[in-house]
């Protein structure tokens, strides 16, 4: 092996960039989080105020509501994606004409910019233009208006996310299914297990690492979602779809409440890390991520 100095030199540019644009902002937000700083306030300078921001946060109903919404969104979106994705992957395991073609179509949403996905669904759902509200009214007399009804707006963001990301789950599950060993299935059949028993006692345990890895990646991304939702509902109506990213943006920019927004960011980051860690611990306990391939 060559000298390790050269190795570190090769790594240096990467580490420097990640430090300046990743770590430094984090340290900065860590400092601002403990200050009172609002550039529109009577005193627009940065003032240290200890844990006051965090004390306020615990009782901030808007913030807690936004957190709760984000988790609800993540839960519904990821659960539907896993179920639907698994179902589609099972069907893709069969042999049928045009398989490659259909697969390409189902990969399509993955490369589309989230902001364009938001635009697409806005055009589908906006009353007076979109076909979905029109036909729901025409055929079922159902009034769909995502800029008026809270539950409909929430559901619309979930449906959009499912449309956008289910293909990823499908392809992940497909890769995992294709790499499963054949013997346990044959053995189970010989033992006279029925289809449900095979699924529950053979397929599911074997797929667990892949499923957990997918949930991990999807959930982290779902909790970060901003672009699509911003484009579709703008966080509304009211605060019905103001997920945590949108909420932080609102506090930080239009309201310029830098100190408070930073402490909010810190709590969000902390919760993300805890969730990440819990899921990752779950993953490692069931062997390593790489087992999937």
């Amino acid at each position: 092996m060559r000298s390790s100095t050269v190795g570190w030199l090769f790594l240096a540019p990467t580490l420097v960039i990640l430090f300046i644009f990743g770590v430094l902002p984090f340290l900065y937000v860590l400092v601002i989080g403990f200050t009172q700083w609002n550039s529109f306030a009577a005193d627009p300078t940065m003032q240290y105020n200890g844990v006051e921001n965090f004390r306020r946060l615990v009782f901030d109903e808007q913030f807690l509501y936004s957190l709760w919404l984000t988790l609800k969104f993540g839960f519904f979106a990821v659960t539907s994606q896993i179920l639907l994705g698994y179902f589609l992957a099972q069907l893709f395991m069969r042999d049928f004409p045009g398989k490659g073609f259909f697969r390409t179509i189902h990969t399509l949403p993955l490369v589309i910019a989230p902001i364009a996905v938001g635009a697409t669904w806005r055009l589908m759902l906006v009353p007076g233009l979109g076909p979905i509200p029109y036909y729901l009214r025409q055929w079922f007399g159902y009034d769909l208006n995502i800029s008026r009804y809270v539950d409909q707006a929430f559901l619309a963001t979930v449906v959009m996310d499912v449309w956008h990301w289910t293909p990823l789950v499908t392809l992940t599950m497909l890769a995992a299914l294709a790499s499963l060993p054949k013997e346990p299935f044959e053995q189970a059949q010989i033992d006279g297990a029925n289809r449900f028993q095979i699924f529950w006692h053979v397929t599911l345990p074997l797929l667990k690492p892949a499923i957990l890895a997918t949930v991990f990646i999807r959930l982290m991304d779902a909790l970060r979602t901003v672009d699509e939702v911003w484009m579709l509902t703008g966080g509304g109506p009211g605060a019905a779809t103001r997920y945590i990213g949108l909420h932080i943006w609102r506090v930080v920019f239009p309201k310029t409440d830098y100190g408070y927004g930073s402490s909010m960011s810190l709590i969000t980051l902390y919760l993300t890390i805890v969730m990440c860690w819990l899921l990752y611990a779950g993953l490692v306990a069931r062997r390593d991520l790489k087992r999937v391939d």
Partner: protein
Amino acid sequence: MRRDRPLAFLAFWTVSSLITLVPIYWMFVVSAKSRVQLFGSPNFLITSFFTENYINTLKDPAFQRYMINSIVVASANALLVTTLALFATYALSRYRLGGKENVFFWTITNRMAPPAVFLLPLFLLYTQVFVLGDFKLFDTRIGLILLYCVFNLPFAIWTLRSVIDGIPKELDEAAYVDGATTWQVLTKVILPLAKPGLAVTGILTWVFAWNEYLFAATLTSVHARTVTTGLAEFVTVTGTNWGQMAATAMLTLVPALLVLGLVQRHIVAGLTFGAVKE
């Protein structure tokens, strides 16, 4: 593999594909119609192609600037990220460095953190701290190019790691025995063998940079705005010019659709940081 009830399968996949395609097709329909044609009940047929939405968009100097910015930012970022990731993964793969697995894992945390958390500190850094005389990183392409490394580099490193690890070490050793320098080994041995992997990584990086919105919207104001921010402006500024918004969105989609064919096989590995391969 069983081949059963092909018609039922065909029917199912057709419906499923339609669900995937109809929203995009509808956007195309809206982009190809005038305000008057869009009035009334939705019509999925395009009887006469209304080109004005596209012409207006393409002629708009602001949009042209956004387009150029997006192309420059995405291309420069892809090039920078692939180069740096090649160096980094080469070091991680071939050198015995204390704590390198920790470094490797640490990089990904940069990709996992919610971007909203970094909006404010980056905004402040870009407007007030990273300033050199009259030059600020705020509202510059270089600012975006460097920033996008934060989430693209970890992705590229994680994807390329297995590619570089897959190149036999004996090849390096043989080259060293023949008197090659480290740089020669990297450029003459590793680079040619890693080319397919580098290409895929580069393309996906390009797409991610092209698709990014949140930072581009926050850290630019006039000069360095990208296509995605231009698209978002339709919601806040122009209101309800749906036709033109659809046309802009269609133009935003084009590059992604073009590369889909190239990277389709690798997209899963790409989006799961190499955790899942097809």
